[in-house]
């Protein structure tokens, strides 16, 4: 029933709330997947456990966002036929294509060394904390509830990752140089967090305020870490965008290939 499939797709694309919830879910899922690559490879056992714990928190958050997105998606017609499978948290995570993913470009970037992973986590967690602060006051009850529950976890992530940024930035010459290199690699993906996509315009988030607060927090941590953000001197820095609307860097395809492999190779396989 091709008609039904295309009309479902229209509803799907046209709902700004569903797109926004998917954007939040995808971002958490992809960062969770990236961090989980450290499992068994962390610099010491305690930090291996820490990064994978964060990975688990992000996966848990991704799940409740996907569950909400599935709940918001109209059910397919009971007559059956192609495209009649119900939308679930699993179908959203495992069966959407690269161009349908709306995650931030920042979180799909490779782990690099420990410093680059830490920096990515800190820049994102600091953003996520400010975002949840606003969402928990927002009009959408479910998003407010998810934010209020998740911000407790994000508080840990911000503290842990900021301490590491300071430890490495203000550590040895080697660790300091590596942090500078990490900034060079990923700073260009941070601007996207504060540039609203079309579907974000009615969500009620004050992006300018979030950007101002983020700058203050990041500057304070960088200052303690003897690091200077590229925008520190007020110069305009080129920022890469596209992730929120499905135009990704080359890395996402590889991540999804691994993440979705089992469901693609054995459709409907259950644990």
């Amino acid at each position, binding site marked *: 029933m091709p008609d039904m499939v295309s009309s479902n797709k229209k509803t799907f694309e046209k709902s700004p709330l569903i797109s926004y919830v998917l954007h939040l879910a995808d971002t958490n899922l992809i960062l969770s997947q990236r961090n989980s690559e450290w499992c068994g490879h962390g610099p010491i056992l305690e930090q291996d456990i*820490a990064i994978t714990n964060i990975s688990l928190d992000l996966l848990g958050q991704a*799940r409740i966002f996907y569950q909400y997105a599935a709940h918001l998606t109209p059910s397919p017609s009971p007559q059956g036929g192609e495209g009649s499978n119900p939308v679930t948290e699993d179908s959203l995570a495992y069966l959407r294509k690269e161009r349908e993913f709306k995650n931030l470009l920042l979180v799909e970037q490779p782990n690099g060394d420990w410093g680059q992973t830490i920096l990515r986590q800190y820049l994102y967690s600091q953003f996520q904390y400010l975002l949840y602060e606003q969402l928990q006051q927002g009009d959408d009850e479910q998003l*407010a509830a998810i934010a209020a529950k998740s911000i407790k976890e994000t508080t840990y992530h911000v503290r842990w990752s900021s301490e590491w940024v300071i430890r490495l930035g203000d550590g040895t010459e080697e660790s300091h140089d590596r942090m500078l290199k990490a900034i060079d690699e990923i700073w260009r993906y941070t601007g996207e967090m504060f540039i609203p996509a079309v579907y974000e315009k009615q969500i009620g988030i004050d992006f300018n305020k979030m950007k101002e607060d983020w700058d203050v927090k990041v500057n304070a941590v960088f200052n303690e870490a003897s690091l200077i953000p590229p925008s520190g001197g007020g110069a305009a820095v080129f920022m890469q965008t596209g992730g929120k609307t499905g135009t990704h860097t080359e890395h996402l395809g590889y991540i999804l290939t691994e993440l979705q492999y089992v469901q693609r190779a054995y459709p409907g396989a259950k644990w």
Partner: protein
Amino acid sequence: MPSTIDKKVLYAYLEEIKDPEVPVLSIIDLGIVRDIKMNDDELEVIITSTYNGCPAMDMIATAIRVELTTLGFKKIKITTAISPAWTTDWMSEEGKRKLQQYGIAPPDKRFSIPKDGVECPLCHSANTRLISEFGSTACKALYQCNDCKEPFDYFKCH
């Protein structure tokens, strides 16, 4: 099927279900059972997760279903509530006592993640230090006692 429900009795049965990751605590001690309701002929149990990613939730929901089925309930619905967010304030005093005896320092309202001063559950010294904010499960942090030298888990105040 029982025609009326006595919540107190049901809670007593649910007390038998332990958290698979901290088996000394029941789901009642943890405060994750929020309510029990009878909607016509359906029994609804409302639970909440501790941390969003807690992998024990599915096992706990299954255990509740099994327990209630053996009590004779035919229609059982288990609802997971997100709001209000779970907090360690909901842990029973009995639960905190059991944790301590089990060798896990219970959550202390005075501080969330102190660098030191958490009472060692083994020798009761306060001369302890934080090793890592993240422990063997999402809800715990890792400490070591400077006196008896034993490492121990602290159930984070959340």
